[in-house]
C-alpha cells in the first residue's frame, strides 16, 4: 500500500540486531530508535508543547478512543485535526483504541463488527469498528495511525488468542480499505498471536502481504513473563521486513528499551514515565528516586547530576520533596525530568549504535542501573546473550 514515510537506516550495530535510522514523516524527521511520550487526551500531563519541543521530542502519541469521545470527530474536523487542536506541529502517532479493549475491558464488548465501549463519562455507547477507527484517525490527522486490532491480554491462552489473531488480520484489511489519506498518513499493522511462536509467524506472514508502511508488535506488556516477552519480540523482528520501522507497543522501562533495541526494535511508547512522575518517582540512570520519602528532605543535590532539564537545573531533591504529589508544579517538573530521561537514554543508545559501541553501552547501562551482576534480571541477560552480548562473562570495554 501507499506510504507517507521514508525509512533510512544510517547505522547497524555490528553485534546485536540494533540499528539507527531516520524516519521521515509528514511533520518532520524522527531519529530512531525513539521513545514516544504518551499524551492520551491531546496533552502530555501538564507539560506545554513548547517544553516538549525543548526536550527534543519529535513524535508524541495520542489516543483515538479518547479523542473520539472528547473533543469528538466533529470538532477535530472543524479545527483541522489534532496537531492544530493541541498546538503541536511535530509528529503524532495515534493508537487505534484497541488497547482500551484490555484496559477498559469491563466497559467493552468485542464482536466481529467491532468493539462496543461504554463511555466512562456519561455511560453512552460507542461502537468502534475498523472503519470508524480509520475515519477518526483520518480526522485526527496523525502521521502514523494504528490499525484497530483485537487485543487480548497477554495472559490469555487457548482459542481466544487465535481468534483475535485472525480477526486482527481481517480488521487490517478493513482498515486498509477504509483509510482515506494513505498519501499523508501512514497505517501500521499490529502483529498479534499472544505468546505462541507459530501464531506470531502466521500473523506476520499474513500482514506482511498487506505491505503497510510499518509494523508493530502488539499484545505484549500485559504482565506476561519477561522471558516469554523477549522471545516473542526477537522472533518477530527476525521475521518482519527489515526495510520498515518496527514498533513495540507499550514498552517503556529503561532496561526493556535497551534490550528491545538490541533485539531490533525501533519505536516505543509508554505512559510509565509520566504516570510514575505523578506519584513523585523520578527516573535516573542509577534507579528510581521516590521523592516523597523523607530521606530527600535534606538532600541538596539535583535529581540527576548532568541532566539539563528544567527540574534538575532549577531545584534540589530537598525542594522537590516539599512539592511532589502536593503541587501541580511538582508533577510537571518530574514529568519533564522523566521524559527528558527517556529521550536522553534513547539518544545515547542511538549515538552508541552510530559509533558502533552499543555493546559497551549496554554493559555500562546495566552496571549503572543494577550495580551488582547478581542483580541483573535473568531475562535481560538471556535476551542479550541471544544477540551476542554476554552481560555476565563479557566485560565493559573502555
Amino acid at each position: 500500500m501507499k506510504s507517507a514515510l521514508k525509512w533510512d537506516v544510517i547505522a547497524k550495530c555490528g553485534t546485536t540486531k540494533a540499528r539507527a535510522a531516520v524516519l521521515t514523516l509528514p511533520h518532520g524527521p524522527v531519529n530512531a530508535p525513539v521513545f514516544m511520550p504518551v499524551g492520551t487526551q491531546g496533552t502530555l500531563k501538564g507539560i506545554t508543547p513548547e517544553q516538549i519541543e525543548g526536550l527534543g521530542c519529535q513524535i508524541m502519541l495520542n489516543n483515538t478512543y479518547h479523542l473520539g469521545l472528547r473533543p469528538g470527530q466533529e470538532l477535530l474536523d472543524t479545527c483541522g485535526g489534532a496537531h492544530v487542536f493541541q498546538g503541536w506541529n511535530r509528529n503524532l502517532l495515534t493508537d487505534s483504541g484497541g488497547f482500551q479493549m484490555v484496559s477498559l475491558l469491563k466497559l467493552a464488548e468485542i464482536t466481529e463488527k467491532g468493539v462496543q465501549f461504554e463511555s466512562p463519562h456519561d455511560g453512552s455507547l460507542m461502537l468502534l469498528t475498523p472503519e470508524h477507527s480509520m475515519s477518526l484517525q483520518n480526522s485526527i490527522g496523525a502521521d502514523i495511525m494504528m490499525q484497530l486490532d483485537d487485543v487480548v491480554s497477554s495472559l490469555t491462552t487457548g482459542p481466544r488468542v487465535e481468534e483475535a489473531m485472525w480477526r486482527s488480520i481481517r480488521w487490517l484489511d478493513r482498515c486498509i480499505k477504509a483509510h482515506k489519506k494513505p498519501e499523508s498518513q501512514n497505517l501500521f499493522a499490529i502483529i498479534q498471536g499472544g505468546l505462541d511462536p507459530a501464531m506470531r509467524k502466521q500473523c506476520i506472514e499474513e500482514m506482511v502481504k498487506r505491505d503497510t508502511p510499518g509494523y508493530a508488535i502488539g499484545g505484549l506488556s500485559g504482565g506476561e513473563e519477561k522471558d516469554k516477552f523477549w522471545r516473542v519480540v526477537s522472533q518477530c523482528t527476525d521475521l518482519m521486513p527489515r526495510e520498515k520501522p518496527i514498533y513495540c507497543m507499550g514498552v517503556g522501562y529503561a532496561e526493556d528499551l535497551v534490550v528491545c533495541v538490541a533485539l531490533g526494535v525501533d519505536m516505543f511508547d509508554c505512559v510509565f514515565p509520566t504516570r510514575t512522575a505523578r506519584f513523585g518517582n523520578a527516573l535516573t540512570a542509577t534507579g528510581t528516586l521516590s521523592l516523597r520519602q523523607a530521606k530527600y528532605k535534606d538532600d541538596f543535590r539535583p535529581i540527576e547530576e548532568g541532566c539539563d532539564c528544567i527540574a534538575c537545573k532549577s531545584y534540589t531533591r530537598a525542594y522537590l520533596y516539599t512539592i511532589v504529589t502536593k503541587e501541580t508544579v511538582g508533577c510537571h517538573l518530574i514529568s519533564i525530568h522523566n521524559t527528558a530521561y527517556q529521550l536522553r537514554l534513547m539518544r545515547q543508545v542511538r549515538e552508541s549504535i552510530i559509533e558502533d559501541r552499543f555493546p559497551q553501552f549496554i554493559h555500562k547501562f546495566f552496571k549503572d542501573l543494577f550495580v551488582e551482576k547478581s542483580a541483573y534480571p535473568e531475562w535481560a541477560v538471556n535476551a542479550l546473550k541471544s544477540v551476542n552480548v554476554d552481560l555476565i562473562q563479557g566485560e565493559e570495554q573502555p
Partner: protein
Amino acid sequence: MPPLTFNIIRQSTQRTAARRGTLVMTQAATATANTNNSTIAVTTSATTSSTNANGNAHEHNHVADNKEPIKRVIETPGCFMHTVKGTVPHLTPDTMRLQGFGGVHVSIEQLLQDHQPGGFDKWPFTLSKFLNLQDMILLCDLRDPSRYVKVPVNSDRYVAIKTHKGVRQLTLEEYLKIIRAYQPDIVAAMADQITDADASAPGTGRGSVSDGEAEAEVQGSPSSRPGLNRVKRSVDRSLRWLDQILLDRQGMDAFVADRAAEEAKRRKMKKTSSTQSHDSTQGVDTLTQETQKLDLVTRNTTKVAPRIPWPGVSMFAHVLGSHVEQERIRSAQETARREAVDGFIVDTNPLQGSSKETILNLLKVSLDHLPAEKPRMVYGLQAPEDVLKSIALGADLFDTSYPFHLTADGKASLYSFGSNNNFNNSITNINNSPTPGEATTNRWINLWDDEHANKFVPLLEGCGCYACKGGRHTRAYINHLLKAHEMLATVLLMSHNMYQYSKFFANVRQSIQDGTFEQYSASFVEQFGSEPERTGEIHAAQAIVEAALSKRSRLDGSNSNSASTGRSSRNGDSNSDCEGEQGAMSKEEKAEARRKLKEQERFERRERNRMEGLKRKKEKQQTIANIRELEETPEP
C-alpha cells in the same frame, strides 16, 4: 547604602494619593550569583512583552562573573507573585518567568509543613537559591496573603500556625532562626494578626477569651469583631516583636527583657513553693535553687554570646488595628517611628465579612498615617477595581492571588486598563457569558462553559501571553483540557491570567505617569463593574467531570485517578481553606455524586452476594447429587 531602596518617580497630580515608583534591591553579585540558575532566568525572561508594558527589569541576570552589584526591580504599583510552597501555582520556572513580575511572596507557614526550624542547621542555602529565585525580589511573610484562615489564638510567646499535622506554635526565637537561615531579601516582621476572631459568624465575639482575659466590646461594632482589648494587645504585641526582631537583626540580644521576666516569675514561684514546703524539703529546695541559678547563668552566657547580624534582610512591618480606627492610627504611627522599618504591610484579610467600603476606609486610615517615602503593601484587596481604589489611597504593592483564584475557577481574564487596547475584543465577547454586575463588558469568561467547546480562537485576541501567543492554544482546547481533567488547563489559564494582571499593573503605572489614572479608573469600573464574590461554587460542568472521575477511579482502581494527583491535592487544599464556604449547589451535586456511588456500591454488593449465593446453591446441589450417587451406588 541599604540593600532596599524605594524611589517615587511620579506622584499623581490629581486628587488621589496614587504614585509610581520602583522598589530596587541592590546586592553584591557574589552574594547570590549562581551561574547555572541565572542562565535559566536570562533565556526565559528576555521575551516578555512587546511594549514597555511589563516594566520589571531583569537586567541583573547576566552578571554572574562581573563585579557589578546585582539590581532587582519591582516597578510600583506592582506585585509580588503569590506562591504555594514556594512555587507559583501551576507554573514551572520557565513559564513563570514569562509573566513579567519581578518579585515573589513566600509564606513561611506553607514551608513549615515540611521543614521544621530544627532542621536548619544543615541548611546550605538562602531561600532564594533553594527556590531558584535569585533573579527576583523575595519577600517572606508568615501568612498566605491569598486567603484568611482561622487559627487558634496567638500568645505573647508565639503565633499559631495551621499545618497538616495540626496547629503548631511558632515562637519568635524559631521565627528568627528561620529568617537567619532563609535570608530573604525582605521579611515581614512576625505580627499578632487577629486570626482568631470569627469575622464571618456573628455572635462569637471572643478572641482572647481563651487567653483568660476580660474583653471589652468596641462601641457600636458587631459582636463578631475582636474586642478592643484584643485589638490593643495585637498592636502592642506586634510592636514589641518588631523591636525584638530589629534588635536581633543588629546582632543584639533581643531576649534580655523576656529572660528577666521569666526569672522574676520563677523567683516568685520559688518563693511561694518554698514557703509552702518550708518544713520538710527545705534542704532539697535550696539545692535545686542553687542549680537553677547556675543553670540561669549558663543559659545567660549562651544566649548573650555574640549573634551575627543580618543587615542584608530588609524589613517590612505589619500595620494592625482591626476595626478600631484609633488603634489603626496608633499602630501606623508607632510602626512608622521605627526608622529601621523599610516598608509596611496592611493585611485586610482579617477584615473579611465587612463591606468593601468599610475595608477601604480602614485601609485609608492606616495609609494616611504612614510616611509617604516608604512602600506600602496591601493584602486581601486583589480584584482589579479594589487594586485601583487601594492605589488611589497610596498603596504600592499587591500579590497575585487574583489570577490564582480566577484560574482555580476555570476563568480567563478579559479586563484591561487604560487606553482600551483590548476594548474591542472584549466587546465582541459580550455575549459569551453572563455579565457580572452592571458592567458593559466581561471581565472574564469561564472556560468550563460549553459555548467555548467550538471556539477556535485565543482566550483574548492579540494577547501576548504564553497561552494566546500566535494563536497556539484556543478556548476550545482549554475547554477540552478542563473537561478531560488535564493539568495543562490550569497551566495555560494561569499563564494568561498572570500575564494580564501584570499588564494591568503596567498600564496603571503608565496612566499615573500620564496623569490619566483617575479618569481611566473611573471608566474601568464603568466598563467592567466589580468582581462578583467568590462563592466556592463548582461550575456545573466541573461537577459532572468530577463525578465521572470518581466513578472511573472506582471502576479501575486508584491508578486511573492518578492523572489528577496534583490537581486534586490542590483542590483538596483550597477546599480545606474555605471550609463552610462551599456553595449550596456544589454541596447538592456532591451529595448527588455520593448517592450515586453508594447506589453503585450497593448494587455491586448485591450482585456479589447473588453470585456467591448461586455458587453455594450449585455446590450444595453438587454435594446432594454426589451423596445421591453414593447412595445409589450399590455397596460392594
